């Protein structure tokens, strides 16, 4: 089971590196949204640095959707998914491996690049570090929630938009606690640790529920 998990993660990372696509694209999309905001709001640095963490989080939520529709669909189309359902490892392990690889190529780069993009919205050092940390803790929740939608729409052609409509409402709790954790690092009455631990809890819950639900959705669609 461990070797199957490792083989799946290695395969998806190799594919992501060779085909390029979603990882780099979602990072560029993230940059685009963050870069557009100062143009829309004007050069008011105080305003920008106050709403900066919220903008970074909103951009991260939208950027997570890029490439999510191909998470299971690509394997469904070429028959690889049938291969995986015939493996001795349970489908949950397959889903967990695929989502982990997907997060490594989309969520992790997003969190690592966020301090750099924080410059565009005039964040100071503390706010940059806090936002990056909240993204690091919170993006797994976004990916796992998204995986359920990806599994449900795996056999639907052009299901990308349906996927967005399905999963965006479910990402709201993560967004709320992600932004409030980042905001509380800059100022406010709530200590930073409180929303951050709730955010971590959301990621852990999403990892369990998301994996089970996505595997169930894949089984059901067959």
């Amino acid at each position: 089971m461990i070797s199957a998990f490792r083989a799946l993660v290695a395969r998806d990372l190799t594919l992501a590196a060779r085909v390029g696509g979603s990882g780099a694209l979602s990072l560029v999309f993230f940059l685009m949204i963050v870069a557009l905001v100062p143009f829309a709001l004007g050069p008011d640095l105080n305003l920008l640095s106050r709403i900066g963490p919220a903008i970074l989080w909103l951009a991260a939520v939208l950027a997570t959707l890029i490439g999510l529709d191909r998470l299971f669909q690509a394997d469904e189309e070429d028959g690889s998914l049938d291969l995986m359902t015939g493996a001795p490892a349970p489908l949950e392990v397959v889903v967990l491996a695929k989502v982990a690889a997907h997060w490594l190529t989309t969520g992790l780069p997003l969190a690592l690049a966020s301090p750099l993009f924080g410059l565009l919205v005039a964040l100071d050092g503390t706010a940059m570090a806090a936002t990056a940390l909240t993204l690091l803790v919170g993006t797994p929740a976004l990916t796992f929630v998204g995986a359920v939608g990806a599994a449900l729409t795996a056999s639907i052609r052009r299901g990308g938009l349906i996927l967005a409509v399905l999963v965006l409402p479910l990402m709201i709790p993560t967004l709320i606690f992600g932004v409030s954790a980042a905001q509380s690092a800059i100022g406010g009455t709530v200590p930073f640790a409180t929303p951050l631990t709730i955010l971590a809890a959301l990621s852990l819950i999403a990892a369990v529920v998301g994996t089970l639900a996505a595997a169930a959705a894949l089984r059901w669609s067959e």
Partner: protein
Amino acid sequence: MRLSVTNLAVRRSGRRIFAGLSFALGPGEALMVTGRNGAGKSTLLAVLAGRLKPDAGEVRVAEVGEASLPECLHVVGHRDGLKSALTAEENLAFARDLLGAPALAPAEALAEMGLAHALRLPVAYLSAGQRRRVALARLLVCRRPLWLLDEPTAALDTASQAVLAHLMARHRAGGGLVVAATHQGLGLADARELRIERPVPPAAGGPGDAAWDAAETVA
């Protein structure tokens, strides 16, 4: 292993594909599933692979220990399960790690299929026939007793068809089972044949269907 199918009936989106299908296979036996286009050959293989729930009847396996049916079979069908961006070797190595029970190394399996030169080529560069041969090489990298082959000779040249016939004979000699949906002979010695006919005339019953039924009775 032993495979027994009793009174199988399948319905897809309300339409009955076939009903009352029964057969049993023991070690070393092969079954050729024939029938005209759309008769339900692929559907039968999908049911055997556990991908489709039958409407009635049951599929039973015996003498396989604790493994479930999907875990003791290989499927080679129209969708080959190969990633175009990966090389033939990487595709096979992945299948080997994922499916377990490793047998031949990817390089050896490809050499058996006469594709040793394609080892480090991305599958995207291969022709349809070569891709099919890579998919067939998957049969050799993991040891599984039941081979489900859906039109395995599609896009294969004569030499490769002979190689496939040889592989199937060797697999059966080792106690393996083969179920193949096909329109051609496949070179399966003393294979049994299961012909799937449409059980009831189609409800719509257009002139096209009548012509087909007539043609079949003549044949």
